[in-house]
């Protein structure tokens, strides 16, 4: 377990900003205690300092997980967000997409979102903006990247992709073993 290096912190924050923008500040300066990012075995955890001090008593090879896992660094040095980060992304998300009930299932199987399945979208979403995907009754389903801006969406044909899939909660079943 170690602190993130300068450049890795930058990578993580850049990635998070894509989804939650300025709300990142709320994750770092919290009223209910200090929270911090820690790295263990290439994975990034977000955890309260209280828990961190106790977790440090556990030997690294026996420590499986602590706090919330946000993602991991790939072999090529990029930061990849995991679906497990959704717990913190969903409440702070700035740009959202809501899916029609008929398209929920498709997205949960790992498919992109087509125009026909789009229920609502946040105004002035830019192209390639990170978005959090919700069902119509505000259940967070996953996150992805907007393939088209809000304006383009209005004129897109029904089968064209609106949002590229990145992670969805179906992964809890599909890939439980490789979740972290």
């Amino acid at each position, binding site marked *: 377990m170690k602190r993130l290096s300068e450049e890795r912190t930058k990578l993580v924050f850049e990635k998070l900003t894509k989804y939650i923008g300025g709300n990142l500040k709320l994750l770092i300066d919290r009223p209910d205690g200090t929270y911090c990012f820690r790295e263990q075995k290439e994975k990034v955890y977000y*955890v*309260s300092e*209280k*828990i961190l001090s*106790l*977790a440090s*008593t*556990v*030997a690294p090879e*026996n*420590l*499986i*997980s*602590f*706090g*919330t*896992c946000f993602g991991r660094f790939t072999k090529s040095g990029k930061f990849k967000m995991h*679906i*497990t980060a959704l*717990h913190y992304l969903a409440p702070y998300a700035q740009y959202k997409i809501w899916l029609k009930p008929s398209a*929920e299932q498709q997205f*949960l199987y790992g498919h992109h979102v087509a125009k026909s399945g789009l229920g609502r979208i946040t105004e002035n979403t830019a192209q390639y903006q990170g978005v959090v995907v919700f*069902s119509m*009754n505000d*259940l*967070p*389903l996953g996150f992805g990247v907007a393939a088209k801006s809000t304006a383009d969406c209005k004129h897109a044909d029904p089968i064209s992709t609106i949002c590229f899939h990145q992670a969805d*909660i*179906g992964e*809890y*079943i599909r890939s*439980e*073993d490789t*979740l*972290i």
Partner: protein
Amino acid sequence: MGRKAKYDEVVVPAGPGRKSKKQSDPTFPKGLIVKDASSLSHRQKQRAKKRQLKSKAQKAKSNEPKKKKMKESVIQAAKKDDNETESEESEEVASGDEHEVPEVQMPLANAEDSDASNSDAESEDSDAKDDETEDEDEEEESNLLPIEKANKKLKKKQEKERKLAAEEMQESITHQDIFTFPTAEELANPVSLQDVQQRIRDVIIVLSDFKRLRDKDRARKEYIDLLRTDLCIYFSYNDFLMEKLMQIFPMNELLEYLEASEVQRPMTIRTNSLKTRRRDLAQALINRGVNLDPIGKWTKVGLVVYSSQVPMGATPEYLAGHYILQGASSFLPVIALDPKENERVLDMCSAPGGKSSHIAALMKNTGVLFSNDVNRDRIKAVIGNFHRLGIVNSVICSYDGRKIPSIIKGFDRVLLDAPCTGTGVVAKDPGVKINKDELDVQRCCTLQRELLLAAIDSVNARSDTGGIIVYSTCSILPEENEWIVDYALKKRDVKLVPTGLDFGEEGFTNYRHHRFHPTLKLTRRFYPHTHNMDGFFVAKLKKFSNMVVKQEIVEDDDATSE
């Protein structure tokens, strides 16, 4: 068009209706009806009279020519080649009085007829008919061949034997009420499952009133052994486990338990109170076509699922972490543990994370929850479940539970859901019925003792709010439950406290030759047949002091007493 059909009009059918129809009298095939002499028609009576007259006339005649003719006709019918010598004679006679031939043959045919009817209807013959035939016999005996006479005699004999056998059968049925102990031969031969089931019931009845119903030459042990082997066959248990079960349960309860263990418990889910409320979840699931109900008054987060049109482990609500599939019995140890906010809690054997996540939910994501499990494959399920359910205050580690006190101490509460033989969850895993033996139980016991001592050691007795250890297993054997707790009471400075569960049966204080600490009645046992949940055991301990010195003293005591 379909929509124009008048579905809402009630059509009242005419007539008396289907149900008022009366079944007509039964009709029997002709052969079955025995005709009374009185019910004969006029013509039949006339014919019978004629026949009688004729037979009398024939009797009056001399026997000799008649016999010859009968002989001749019979032989002719049966075997033609045998009667070369007699053929000349008979030819002479035949030529002598040709007119008589058909008339003489008549009584013979008649006799044969009556014979045939006798043999057909013999089984249901009444005494009256017997008399009739006897009369006829007397009449006809004189004009029968010796072989026919012998045949008649034999038939009579058979008839008598059959009657005797029937009487004997009747007698044996009336005396069947009292169970007779099967002989060694009967035991050696395999019998059908129904017979075994009947025998189980009979033996249990005998055992319930042993003095009156017993076989004087048989000991109680023989009955018990018979019952055990029968139960083993019927429910396919191994001898060892059945013996244990028979020691735990009284006879009448045993059968109930075994039958209840054959059926699965209903599927239950636990609402994740971190993300939703039970009422909202129930509404969302009902909209998906799930039929559910609250589990009971003792918990506010449980739901029973009766039927579902969608797989319960793959609904969007499940994936979003609004609930987790969890057996009803798994709620109990957590309710007993009663974790408070901002405490430090340890779950020693946490996989797959059902009880552990329940603890986190009760702590409202505050404090610290250590979830440990020795198995690295199974701990992956804990990771998945915790992240899905939104639990952020956890540290998931993989140690051997026995080493935990040497790594981290000072917990407010510890839950030890110990690995066990699983004799309480036979419905889930029927393999338990046959693959457990004395050695497995012993191994589990040793591990459980060590784990429980480790759990007690890792608790801080000076904690303001806690100092609580909850020990639970999904086994019903006292060896894995009361015995272990009793051992811990001797070894450490702990005492039993009420579990806070207002149902369940009290733990044993006396079990066979064991005399456990009297406070063990504060522990709770749960059975499939009484509580409709898996077999389960929960004990709640409170730690007084962190003294480990006491351990040695007690050990010394033990050594001297032993």
